[in-house]
């Protein structure tokens, strides 16, 4: 797996990534992983708790907010929302 931009988050990130990959290949692609609440949810929360601090410290959180705004058209197109 790839590293996190915040080295202190590498451990929780690795655990989440491993869980996600297993869920993706064994459940999601087989049509049984439709729920957002799954075995990786708790690991994702742990990872985000660590990462959000790092993003704030580096001032990246603000840039991401703008990037999300700019991406709304793509979301509408690719999420097939009417």
């Amino acid at each position, binding site marked *: 797996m790839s590293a996190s931009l915040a080295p202190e988050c590498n451990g929780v*990130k690795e655990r989440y990534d491993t869980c*996600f*990959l297993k869920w993706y290949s064994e459940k*999601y*692609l087989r049509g049984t*992983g439709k729920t957002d609440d799954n075995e990786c949810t708790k690991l994702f929360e742990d990872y985000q708790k660590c990462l959000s601090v790092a993003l704030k410290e580096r001032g990246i959180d603000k*840039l991401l907010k703008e990037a999300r705004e700019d991406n709304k058209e793509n979301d509408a197109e690719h999420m097939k929302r009417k």
Partner: protein
Amino acid sequence: MKVFSNSYTFNYSWEEVSTANWRKYCPWNDKTTHVIAVDTLAREVDQATGILRTERLITCKQSAPDWVKTILGSMDTSQVFETSYVNPAEKTVTMVSHNITWANMINVQETVVYKPMGANQTSFEQDARITALCGGWQRIKNSIEDSLVTRFHENSMKGKEGFECVLAMSRRVFAEEREKERRGDAKMKA
């Protein structure tokens, strides 16, 4: 504005490619060392369509030529915001990325689509639009755009080679895991 397009066929199923895609930038890939971190920011499955939407932040070692850095500012790393959409019904992976570093001076938007081509092949289509927004001479803007197109081309080639390594390793590891599970089952039955 400059446009960069590229397409390629991987000799792996869409399921294999879409899975390995999540670890494209892992240590199995020694070609894309410019990517130093990949962080997942958000992930959700749309209940109505089954589409998996993921936001990631990709951190790269700054590799712009020195003269570009002189104009745009010097930084050690640059970052890209990527949103991807996996549509399991249509079997497509669409990834849209844009730069958040130097975003007020250059605008780079890349779209990558992976689609199945039969049962054992997957097509990769990449398309990037590069626009220098910084004020000043058109000649300088053109040079910046050209230099970024060149870098895109180089990284795209490296990305393809590196991803081939990841695909080969993924197939091997999955086969080994299946074998282990099979042996485990056999032992349980015995």
